[in-house]
């Protein structure tokens, strides 16, 4: 892994994704007294994945609130504060813990607006870490974004880089709807994790937004469309760059999984006709199926070859490195899939 400097030669400020997120929160907190943060270890510790780093020093314990290990309790409390018009940002440390608090997330946070016929708003951000690749095993490595995307009422954003992370977090805080902000640990640029160079990058100092629900063409190409999200986008870009001159790969970074940017998918596949989907979430009944159905709803003939799905297979996440990497979407598998879809 290369060493990453925080100042690029050109003087553009470069931040880790973690820092980009905490900066977004800080800027919104300065601008709006109704924004506050709640969660386990978000205070002095700064968030297990650094998403709240530095906030405690600036805003103190009254606005950066360490909670008991009571996810149902404090996510519910976030909902209560939000329906009263505050704008809480609540952290669920790992998405894997959703099972202890899914009722608040799904039966309350996501549905109150609809159930109230639009009369009650729940302007709240629920952020959480996702993803594996560092042997944290079955209960601490999942992605599960398709689980949330399956259930209507939630916006679900999953940035792949610092720039998008800051802009999406600001959009999420300003949104009048509950937004799940999911960050893969591997994109955070943490000092104690594998150093992915794309997890650090230029981030403007001012507050800016990235629209929720819009994908980005992260690498333009014409031979094959690779649709991906989160850390896997970084791998896809590595592969697309490595294949430059040989295969022209279009990498679509969804950035948001719900609502899904179907137009962007259709636009790219209309151009290339060949589809690879790269997703670290469990394969079946997930993102890959919905992307394909988006296309076949319109016209199956848009697909010139069998679709290649490079996803986490339908097995719980194993601990040992050799087993886990046997399941994870890697650059090698992505490259092989691109070759396969080109040959078909």
């Amino acid at each position, binding site marked *: 892994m290369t060493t990453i400097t925080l100042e690029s030669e050109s003087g553009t400020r470069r931040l880790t994704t973690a820092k980009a997120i905490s900066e977004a929160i800080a800027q919104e907190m300065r601008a709006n007294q109704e924004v*506050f943060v709640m969660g386990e270890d978000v205070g002095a510790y700064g968030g297990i994945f650094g998403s709240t780093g530095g906030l405690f020093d600036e805003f103190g314990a*009254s606005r950066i609130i360490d*909670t*008991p290990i*009571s996810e*149902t*309790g*404090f*996510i*519910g*409390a*976030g*909902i*209560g*504060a*939000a*329906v*009263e*018009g*505050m704008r*809480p940002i609540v952290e669920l440390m790992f998405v894997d813990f959703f099972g*202890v608090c899914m*009722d*608040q997330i799904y*039966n*309350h946070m996501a549905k*109150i*607006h*609809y*159930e*109230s*016929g*639009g*009369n*009650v*708003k729940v*302007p709240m951000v629920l952020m959480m870490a996702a993803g594996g690749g560092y042997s944290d095993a079955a209960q601490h490595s999942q992605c599960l974004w398709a689980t949330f995307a399956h259930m*209507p*009422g939630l*916006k679900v954003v999953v940035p792949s880089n610092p720039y998008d992370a800051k802009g999406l977090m600001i959009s999420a805080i300003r949104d*009048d*709807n509950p937004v799940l902000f999911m960050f893969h640990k591997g994109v955070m640029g943490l000092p104690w994790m594998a150093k992915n160079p794309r997890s650090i990058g230029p981030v403007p100092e001012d507050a800016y937004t990235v629209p929720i629900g819009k994908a980005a063409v992260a690498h333009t190409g014409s031979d094959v469309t690779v649709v991906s999200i989160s850390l896997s986008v970084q791998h896809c870009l590595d592969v697309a760059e490595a294949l430059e001159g040989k295969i022209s790969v279009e990498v679509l970074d969804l950035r948001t999984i719900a609502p899904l940017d179907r137009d962007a998918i259709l636009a790219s596949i209309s151009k290339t006709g060949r589809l690879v989907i790269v997703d670290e979430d469990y394969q079946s009944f997930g993102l890959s199926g919905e992307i394909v159905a988006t296309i076949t709803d319109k016209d199956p003939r848009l697909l010139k070859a069998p679709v290649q799905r490079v996803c986490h297979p339908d097995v719980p996440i194993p601990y040992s490195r050799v087993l886990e990497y046997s399941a994870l979407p890697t650059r090698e598998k992505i490259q092989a899939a691109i070759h396969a879809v080109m040959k078909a």
Partner: protein
Amino acid sequence: MVTDQMRLNFYKQMVRIRTYEEMIKRDYHADKTPAWDIGAGLIPGEMHLSAGQEPVAVGLCANLRNDDAMTAPHRPHHLALAKGVDMKAMTAEIFGRASGLSHGKGGHMHLFDPSQHFSCSGIIAEGLPVAVGQAMAFSRRKTDSVAVGVAGEGATNQGAFHEALNLAAEWKLPVVFVIEDNDWAISVPKKVSTSVRDNSLRAAAYGIPGERVEGNDVEKIYEATKRAVDRARAGGGPTLLEIHTVRLWGHFEGDAQAYRGTELAEAEAKDPIPLYEAKLITAGILNETLVAAIKLESSNEVEAAITFAKNSPEPLASDVYLHVFA
């Protein structure tokens, strides 16, 4: 101090709620036969009525203001009406009409009235953390509003109960937790589900005051809830109250209640409204004429609300796509 004026008002409100439940019951069952179908009729779906529990709602809400919040459970009508939710809009919601509180999207278990900071939810105990959050907003904004989380005695064995109480206690928030103990959780009696006889004992697990109110007596309930609400309003933190009440009817409409055996007759004998009526008559606060007038006023109000509901248009089929996102 409970004044005679208050007593009369308690009675009126209890009658108003009972009348409401009786008429909803009537219209709920009116057109579900011959082959009884829960989804058929003017009011489809599950229906949890609160007959017998009026003293809790009335005694409690006598201490509450519009700006106080309440989260109610799946059995919400008595609480909604006592809290001040508009009867017409609520009824239209129960009838699934466009003029309903939620334009027909919520139904009887999902009544939302932001003007009263009132909501309810069909998931056991999960409204309690939401009340904690409303109290959090009040305390952060330094208002003196309080939040009330209401749940049944069956709900006290759900994890959310525990988490909500601990949070409220730890953060000393202005919340009152009110447990309506009607002895039953559907068909499961408290004694086979709850390891303590008295849920107010559980307050000790959070270092907060706990109190059980026996007798289903609106005045005692008023006084106990007043202590709790006043304490919360004054910054004294949360209280856990368990109020012994009675479920006169089935868990939901259509419940044959075979499991209740002889207890059902005992329960029916505890109907709080005739008991309170008799007490107020003896005390000279009520008389038969007044009773009749109050009942008439109530039925007029309720019939008007039902008429409003029935005459309101159904939502448009295409409205199903509205309000997913703000």
